[in-house]
């Protein structure tokens, strides 16, 4: 499937940034339509087949957060937030509401395209429900059905907790998982906000899979927000 079949909705009210995003999308041969208000965006989403949405949070009519909330009521299309707001709490809120990714302005075309590529791959993965087989990133492979992890073709010993953390990241490959989402998923609801425990668990896992935890190859920390397993 070529990029041309993917229809991307660009919701952005700043003309310069819209131009720049559209140019980059055209270069990569995506189809796109633009909307400059939340109302516009919603009507496009209802009337047309949209595959991915790029969403600015500061829109003239409604807040982008409301758009995410509304869209998530009926659709799980990938939403990439593109915003000049850089508060961690807002990033985490957008992600917890169901946004798939968050890009802070100013950003480069390369960065944007990388995020869109991840979203496109998700569309494919989603179609196949390939959650039982083996997933690979670089030299790191996880076999979901056998609960095994391989690093550079050698079996890697991980604790059950480390395994569930890694498999959670693999299931959401390329996506930022907020700290609270991870805590809820691994420790369960009601465990509270013991981010310390998660940090310790992450540090342990990193020491097994990364050559240098300060220059991670696989698991990237989004400071103040959460973690992401790189997808390239």
């Amino acid at each position, binding site marked *: 499937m070529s990029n041309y079949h993917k229809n991307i909705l660009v919701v952005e009210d*700043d003309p*310069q*940034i819209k*131009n*720049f*995003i559209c*140019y*980059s999308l055209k*270069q990569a041969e995506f189809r796109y339509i633009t909307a400059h208000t939340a109302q516009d965006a919603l009507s496009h989403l209802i009337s047309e087949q949209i595959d991915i949405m790029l969403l600015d949070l*500061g829109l003239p009519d409604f807040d982008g957060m409301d758009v995410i909330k509304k869209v998530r009521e009926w659709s799980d299309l990938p939403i990439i937030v593109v915003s*000049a*707001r*850089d*508060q*961690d709490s807002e990033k985490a809120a957008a992600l917890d509401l169901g946004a798939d990714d968050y890009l*802070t*302005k*100013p*950003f*480069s*075309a390369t960065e944007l395209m990388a995020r869109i590529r991840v979203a496109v791959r998700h569309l494919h993965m989603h179609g196949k429900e390939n959650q039982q087989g083996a997933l690979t990133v670089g030299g790191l492979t996880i076999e979901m059905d056998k609960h095994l992890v391989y690093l550079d073709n050698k079996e890697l010993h991980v604790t059950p907790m480390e395994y569930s953390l890694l498999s959670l990241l693999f299931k959401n490959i390329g996506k930022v998982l907020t700290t609270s989402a991870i805590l809820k998923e691994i420790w369960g609801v009601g465990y509270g906000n013991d*981010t*310390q425990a998660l*940090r*310790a668990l*992450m*540090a*342990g896992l*990193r*020491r097994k899979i990364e050559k*240098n*935890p*300060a*220059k*991670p190859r696989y698991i*990237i*920390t989004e*400071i*103040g927000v959460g973690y992401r397993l790189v997808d390239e």
Partner: protein
Amino acid sequence: MSEKKKFSVKGIVQRVILTVLLLSGASAIGYFFGWTGFPETNIVITYLLAVHMIAWLTDGFLWGIFSSIIATFLFNYFFTEPYLTFSVNDPSYIITFVIMTIVALITSTIASHAKKSAVDARQKEAETKAVYNLTNHLTDADNMQDIVGFAIGEISEYLGCQAACLCFQENGTPEDFFMQHRSDHKQIRREIEDAKEIKHRMEQLRTGYEIGSEFYDWPIYGYEKMLGMVRIPIKTAQTMSTAQTRLLRSMIESVALAMDRLRASELHNRSREETVQERYRANLLRAISHDLRTPLSGIMGTSEMIMDMSGQDDPRYNLASAIHKDADWLHSLVENILSLTRLQEGKLILNKQPEAVEEVLAGAIERISKQWPEYEIDVSMPDELLMIPMDAKLIRQVLINLLDNAIKHTLPDGDIRISVEKAENLHFAVFKIADSGSGISQEDLPHLFQMFYTSRTQIVDAKHGIGLGLTICDAIIKAHGGTIEAKNRIDRTGAEFTFTLPMEVQMHEQLS
């Protein structure tokens, strides 16, 4: 006041004169009645009237008894046969004398009782009025001066003196002046030098008041601590009755309540104001950062677009690339200015949480590597997980600024290294960022962290910036309770920046 008069010589003389006058008056009227041939019962009644008046006009119970006995003797002396002797011919007069004495006694007792309760009632009324006026005024007072003014005014009026009041500030230190009531329309401000010492003495106090050279000082105890003292001039204080003392205490009590209420409402207002300001500031910063980032991303994106449209050898590529670099530089300046504004508000509340050092390092290195892909950064850190309480975003900003600074002074194949380790005493984590540039000149070393300091020995251009980066590092690290310093490397040329962060949460976390 009445008790005071009772014992003064002047008072006794007055009473004696009054008694003599009234009794002689009664005797004179008696003579007149005897001369005109009125029955002598009238004379007895006249004496009783005189006794009654004496008991009423003087206030002593004793005076009443005394005068009733005298009256009986006078009647006996002047009006019963044989005249002008204390003997009596008709024994039935003995009964008259006894009854007359008893009646006189009862009358005088009742009179002096009535007098006393009238005085009591007046005093009660004065007390009630004083307390009422005071509380009434205190309710209206909305600042300390008013409270003090009303308090000393009412106390002075009640005690008939020139009372004064010394206030303590909110942090407990006494003011260096006190207010004194002089007259109804005049209150003066008097300097005081040994206020601290007085306060200290007051704190050791075991009795109700402290005796000074000019005043008796009564402490004003608030809900939590001493709020000040009411000063009563020695002369008045020494002669105060227990009732007055009691009332003074309750007045001071009211003053304390009013002061507490004022302090509480001031505190409340202040914190509400602060919250509003805090919200306003946060909104402003957010708006500014948003409004600066949006056009910057437009500029950066568009220049990137132009770079993409033109080939590398096209002169337009270089122009666009220059725009992009400058915009990028502007972007980092904006980030720094925003952090600085936050820090310089002086009341930065750090969002301190234990953070894994490796994650913060990785965050900074990722950002720098994206910007300067041609540079390799060497990292060394302990194998164990280091968790340090910090505001991760601010510390990342410090690392980014220091790495950026290192890169700007080093060639791409140079040696840029960052290391983290625990200090020997285990209380601090030590971060070192070293480059292999030309190092820092001795002239610049002492000024590096000053705001807007730009190297004197190097040519200033956009790449060197306006020297905000290091100032921010300094402010952030100090806000964390750490230290930062710069020096030249010993092993080779190049600069080395070292900063420390406390491993444990400290008590004094705020930027002073």
